[in-house]
């Protein structure tokens, strides 16, 4: 941003009068601020202000209506002491595997396959189909998958047709399978996004690199590991950042499909924050969990950012 301003101002800098020049810069800066202010005001009011208030509330015992009482770190201690609250954090990290590792891993494979063998109409169709889940609202996706995964749903019907009737179950009501099922819905939603982003990245890679590799007799796998992955680190970084955030801050898919059940086995911080704040009127405890969620996301996301930045340099 700074360097841009400088280069834009270079003609002004050549004007002899110093006074005029500083006035000009001031004017430019003022205009710049005028453009930024509306968005900044919204950002401050709807993002930064609530964040600061959240941090403040997390040190209080408050029901949202009557007087607040200062309790220090008690809310934070409660989060770590109550197994059902801390358990949500563990579940969130398990979701990271489904929401991030699978979409990014499978997305990489699909993108490189589309790039190598199906760049024509078939590739376009594949891209569109993979991206479709991304434009369906998560709540609608959750409801549809709730039906598909029910005991008499399509998934079980298909399994029965395939002679796998033994393994049919109410997937979202099963202690072992509920979280993986929710994770699977996440894969379905996020795979298209990752594939498309990675495919765009692959298309930016200089084709001559692939050509020379092929002349040297490189297989698809050689290309994939030696050219595609190293040159896609930046895109992979973006994918991981978005999907990890989605996993840790998940709310809609979980709330719509399982509401945290059975027996809290799919409960994630997002759902708990909602229940604590709105059902239990425990704004302080909800805020403490929200702040911890924020810290948790930062701890995971910052290293990813640093790594992809390093590789970009």
């Amino acid at each position, binding site marked *: 941003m700074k360097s841009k301003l400088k280069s834009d101002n270079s003609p002004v800098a050549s004007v002899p009068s110093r006074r005029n020049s500083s006035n000009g810069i001031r004017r430019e800066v003022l205009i710049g601020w005028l453009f930024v202010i509306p968005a900044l005001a919204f950002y401050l009011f709807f993002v930064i202000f*609530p964040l600061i208030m959240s941090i403040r509330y997390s040190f209080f015992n408050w029901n949202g209506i009557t007087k607040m009482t200062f309790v220090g770190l008690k809310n934070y201690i409660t989060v770590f002491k109550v197994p059902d609250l801390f358990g949500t954090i563990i579940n969130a990290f398990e979701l990271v595997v489904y929401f991030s590792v699978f979409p990014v891993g499978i997305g990489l494979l699909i993108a490189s396959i589309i790039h190598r063998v199906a760049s024509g109409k078939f590739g376009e169709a594949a891209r569109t189909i993979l991206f479709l889940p991304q434009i369906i609202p998560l709540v609608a996706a959750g409801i549809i998958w709730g039906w598909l995964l029910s005991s008499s749903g399509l998934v079980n019907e298909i399994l029965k047709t395939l002679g796998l009737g033994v393994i049919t179950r*109410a997937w*979202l009501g*099963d202690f072992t399978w509920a979280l993986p099922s929710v994770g699977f819905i996440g894969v379905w939603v996020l795979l298209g996004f990752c594939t498309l982003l990675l495919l765009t990245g692959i298309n930016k890679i200089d084709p001559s690199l692939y050509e020379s590799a092929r002349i040297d007799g490189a297989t698809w796998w050689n290309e994939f590991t030696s050219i595609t992955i190293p040159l896609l680190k930046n895109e992979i970084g973006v994918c991981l*950042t978005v999907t990890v955030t989605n996993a840790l801050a998940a709310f809609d898919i979980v709330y719509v499909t399982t509401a945290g059940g*059975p027996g809290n086995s799919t409960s994630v911080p997002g759902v708990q924050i909602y229940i604590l704040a709105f*059902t*239990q009127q425990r704004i302080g405890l909800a805020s403490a969990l929200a702040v911890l969620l924020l810290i948790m996301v930062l701890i995971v996301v910052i290293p990813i950012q640093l790594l992809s930045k390093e590789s970009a340099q």
Partner: protein
Amino acid sequence: MSKNKLSLTLVSLLLLTSMLLSACGGQAATATAAATTAAATAAPTEATAAATVAATVAATPSCGTDPVVLNAYFETGFDLPFKLSEEFTKQFPNVTWDIKQDQFSNLINETPRLLAGDNAPDLIRLPTMVSFAKQGLLMNLDDYAKAFGWDKWSMAQINQNRVSTDGIRGSGSLYAWGLNYSLTGVFYNKAEAAKIGMTDAPKTLAEFDDLLAKAKTAGLTPIMQWGSAKSGMGLAFPLQQLMASVGDTTPISEWIYNKAGATIDTPSNLTAAQHLEQWVKAGYFPTDINAIEYTDANARFEKGEGVFIFNGDWQNADFDKNMAGNIGFFLMPPATAGGNPAAMSSPLTYGIAAKAKHADCAAFFLNWVATNDKARQIDVAVGGSNPGGPDDATMPTVAAGSITNDTLAAGLVIGKAGTAMDFIANSTSAIFAQGWTPELQKMVGGKEDAAGLLKAVQAEYESELAQ
């Protein structure tokens, strides 16, 4: 570039936090613990024409003759309050309605903000009431009770709407009123019951156990019940019925009312929970119960899956429609022969905001629902439940063959025995979502035994009350 990405990440995360706070932030300003002085004394101000009316009548709150728009929040999916409001306007044309509606689960979350807001509702379906009463958000109805003579009616369920100054339900001032009084018990599919040779309703728990075992042996689903976290765990119904079958209802009610030192973890309740655990282990419930929604459970039961279902009379109209002539009802039998049956029976609770603009008219409406013949008729026909009212009020007639005949008759038995209880799901605002539902689901999944269930729920209860 990466800075931008990082801030993008932060923004998306912060949305969650801001969502939380934009909803609560505004409340601090409105958080005036409004004094809940009953407005009955200010009643005649609305009725300009009432000046010439005799003093005794003027002392009774009414809707006056000037145009009144009642600001109401009803529960989505239940016709009763809508039908009652239509009839009320027919009889009192100066009263019209501004009705907002929402799902019960949303009302649980919205109610404190609605009550504390500037346009506080005159009438609102109340999911819970103790915290709202304590926070001064609800109108104290004692003066209305005196004015309308509610305090002379003998229905024990009225006490469920009382809250004492220390926040204990069951006694103290009246903060809400029931449009009707629901009753729970065991519904059965007559055709399926015939298959296991059931001719009469079981008289004892042992007889009921026999029927369940027979149903299992016959390859039927003995009990259909819902149990998903979204609907809330329906096993709370048979559990509480078993508690009242093997033990006394008083300790259960005291626990629901938050009496000091009350515990759900009693030896008698342990016996009940163990009994339920045996039912679960014996395969008396559908294997996918942890994923079954309330509506799906009823739909499956109506299609013939399940001999019995634990439910309440609010489901009567639906059962009558979809299982005409094939639906039966009995009260959960006591463990000892000759003992009294017990049931959950609670008011369909409506309250008036402390800041309501037309409190008198709203109270007049509540009184009208319980005392007007036409209203009582709608109450029974649409709501399926006992309309309450004065002791000498006549019970509206019900279509012959309707299951409502059976539930109303059962209600009289419970009323006589004095064994009506509120629901264990209502003891605190989140005990159902955070206590009963997950813990009972764990019991179904074999991850919790009866003793662990009661201990976990009691711990959650104490943690919530400590707030």
